[in-house]
């Protein structure tokens, strides 16, 4: 791996090497820029470093606490926050869905929330690009939205997915094998998926097409440096421009000079870093003249319905969500704005037990009895679009972490629309699971994923960056991660974050080619 000295002014210092920063690092390096991508977490080698053990593999999650408040406090860690080169994609469950085209113009076409500053056709081209880069395995005919072609064939649907399929057919709604970022045939150094089912705790065979397996090697081949276990604490500015990043590595604080700085730390760490970089010229944090940094944070509703089946399902086999239904993303006859998808489930034992105890408070012999039904359980879980609200936000707490940096404080509360969607989904999934033969149904609540926090837009008064991810306030300070998302959509966000990152990479390249010196390096 090429390495850059701190004193050398690199073209791009990227903070975070996940779905945003990893994709950007690869494409910028391939375009000829000098790139250092920092990640707070380690550079894992899955074949030798990953155990088949839920407790051990918690090492993939961001375990340092965020202070979580509001009426409906979010859970972080394994729900949405990775700490590794490759970011959350190292532990994501590989569900590779696209936004419904209308969502990019949610306000003008559907009458809720805000429009994206990007046309859906543009995003569609970049979905194609990142789905090829990640060799998504999906069905030949996906039932919803404009046609798409997945590069690898769909996986055989496991028993848990067949429960969803049976229920969908009984309810008269379409279903599909879930497009997944794990290969169904050999690809380069990746063997086909062996259905070990431990995707959420890290793929130890490299079948999963995470950013760690796809874009990071591309970045290295193109001469980028991935600087792991390096926590960036501050971005420095001078005369209205970013000059580099202060980061902690090997027990000391260092400073990397850079012509451009890109925040790609996702919806908590990106706002946290911008707010903590406040200085005399930017007293409320960098890029925050609108007061929007940290605001409009969104999560996905992740409510589920579980039932006992007559037959053994053994849902631990295969990727956890092998069948999906987007019916309520593409049907507008409903009593709420936005949409939700839902998928079949396959939680590992401690994950499922934790769902039971935190939702039901079940303990003692009752708990052990319920858990002995593990192999006969099936479940349906939603990914539901919450509304962007200014009051759902990230700020800095008084309390400091081990680096001496203020911890993130997060406030989150659902609005009435969120609750209507939640009721609708629980009712529909419950009827569907029952129609599929589920008994003794149990409902649980949760949230998953993060979106927003530094949204892009067309108006500097109400957004943090323009459509290129360039902050309105500081021309060589960029954002490229899920925090840019103005709306959450009713699908897992990874592919949208990656597609947007691939798009931004091309935009930065184009701006540089136009020799806009105060913009990208030209």
């Amino acid at each position: 791996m090429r390495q850059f000295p701190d004193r050398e002014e690199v073209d791009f210092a990227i903070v975070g090497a996940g779905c945003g920063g990893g994709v950007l690092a690869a494409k910028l390096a391939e375009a000829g820029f000098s790139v250092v991508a920092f990640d707070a977490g380690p550079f894992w080698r899955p074949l030798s470093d990953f155990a088949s053990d839920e407790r051990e593999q918690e090492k993939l999650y961001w375990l340092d606490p965020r202070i979580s408040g509001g009426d409906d406090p979010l859970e972080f860690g394994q729900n949405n926050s990775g700490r590794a080169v490759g970011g959350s994609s190292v532990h994501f469950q590989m569900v590779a869905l696209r936004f419904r085209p209308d969502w990019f113009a949610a306000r003008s076409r559907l009458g809720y929330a805000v429009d994206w500053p990007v046309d859906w056709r543009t995003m569609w081209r970049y979905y194609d690009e990142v789905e090829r880069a990640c060799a998504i395995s999906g069905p030949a005919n996906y039932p919803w939205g404009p046609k798409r072609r997945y590069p690898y064939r769909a996986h055989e649907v496991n028993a848990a997915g067949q429960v969803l399929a049976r229920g969908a057919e009984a309810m008269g709604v379409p279903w599909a094998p879930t497009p997944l970022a794990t290969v169904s045939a050999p690809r380069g150094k990746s063997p086909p998926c062996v259905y070990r089912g431990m995707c959420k705790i890290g793929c130890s065979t490299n079948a999963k097409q995470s950013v760690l397996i796809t874009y990071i090697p591309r970045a290295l081949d193109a001469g980028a440096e991935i600087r792991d276990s390096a926590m960036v604490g501050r971005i420095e500015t001078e005369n209205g421009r970013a000059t580099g990043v202060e980061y902690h590595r090997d027990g000391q604080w260092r400073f990397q000079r850079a012509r451009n700085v890109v925040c790609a730390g996702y919806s908590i760490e990106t706002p946290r870093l911008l707010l903590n970089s406040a200085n005399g010229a930017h007293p409320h944090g960098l890029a925050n003249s609108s007061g929007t940094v940290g605001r409009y944070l969104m999560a996905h509703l992740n409510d589920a319905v579980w039932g006992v089946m007559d037959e053994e399902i053994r849902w631990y086999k295969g990727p956890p969500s092998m069948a999906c239904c987007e019916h309520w993303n593409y049907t507008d006859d409903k009593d709420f704005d936005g949409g939700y998808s839902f998928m079949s489930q396959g939680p590992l034992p401690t994950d499922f037990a934790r769902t039971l105890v935190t939702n039901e408070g079940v303990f003692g012999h009752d708990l052990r009895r319920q858990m002995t039904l593990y192999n006969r359980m099936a479940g349906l879980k939603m990914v539901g679009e919450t509304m962007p609200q200014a009051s759902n936000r990230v700020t800095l707490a008084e309390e400091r972490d081990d680096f001496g940096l203020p911890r993130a404080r997060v406030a989150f509360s659902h609005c009435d629309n969120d609750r209507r969607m939640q009721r609708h989904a629980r009712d529909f999934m419950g009827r569907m699971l029952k129609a599929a033969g589920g008994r003794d149904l149990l409902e649980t609540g949760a949230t998953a994923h993060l979106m927003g926090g530094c949204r892009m837009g067309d108006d500097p008064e109400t957004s943090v960056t323009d459509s290129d991810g360039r902050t309105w306030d500081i021309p060589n300070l960029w954002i490229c991660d899920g925090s840019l998302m103005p709306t959450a959509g009713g699908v897992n966000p990874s592919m949208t974050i990656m597609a947007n990152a691939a798009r931004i990479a091309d935009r930065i390249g184009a701006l540089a080619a136009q020799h806009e010196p105060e913009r990208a390096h030209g």
Partner: protein
Amino acid sequence: MSETVHRPYPGWNVLEKWDSPSFNDATREVLRKRLQEVPARRFFTAGEWPAVEALCDTVLPQDDRADPVPLANWIDATLHEGRGNGTRRADMPAPPEAWRLGLAALDAEARARGAADFALLGADARAALLRDVDAGRLRADWQGLPARRFLRNLVMAEVVAIYYSHPAGQSEIGFGGPASPRGYVRLQPGRADPWEAPPGAWEDTP
């Protein structure tokens, strides 16, 4: 409390695959440590320890096990190492303080019910006390600690995370256990690979 748990998979033990392709070296190393290097008490005081053990035993009774999973020791290790889970509720103190407050409150609840402390209550009385706490029927001062959240999100969530990542808990429920590099072939309902638990002996169908 001498209820027995019906075991659909008697005799199934994921550790029998130790030398098979279902275990890789990383997994073997993690499980070897977990089984052989049980950490000694370092975080809780000797005075707190009986309450911790009684609490674990109430949340996850192992009266049917000759060799119970040492839940209290692993909880102690987690707190000693300061290992978090990524989230701290704004109305909760950090886990070390929450645990100390919570244990003291459980003792106070026991005293409010006429016992000397929580650990000295019988199993049924401890379970009844936890049900009261979970339902918000509090008789003691919890000093601002949200009682139900302490019980569910700190105590119960941690206990099950230890128990069901232990081979004993995994074998009990017929989970396949470690699976790398070998995964699974038979994904259909009612089907199992030869290296999985054989079909369960269920009291009802199937």
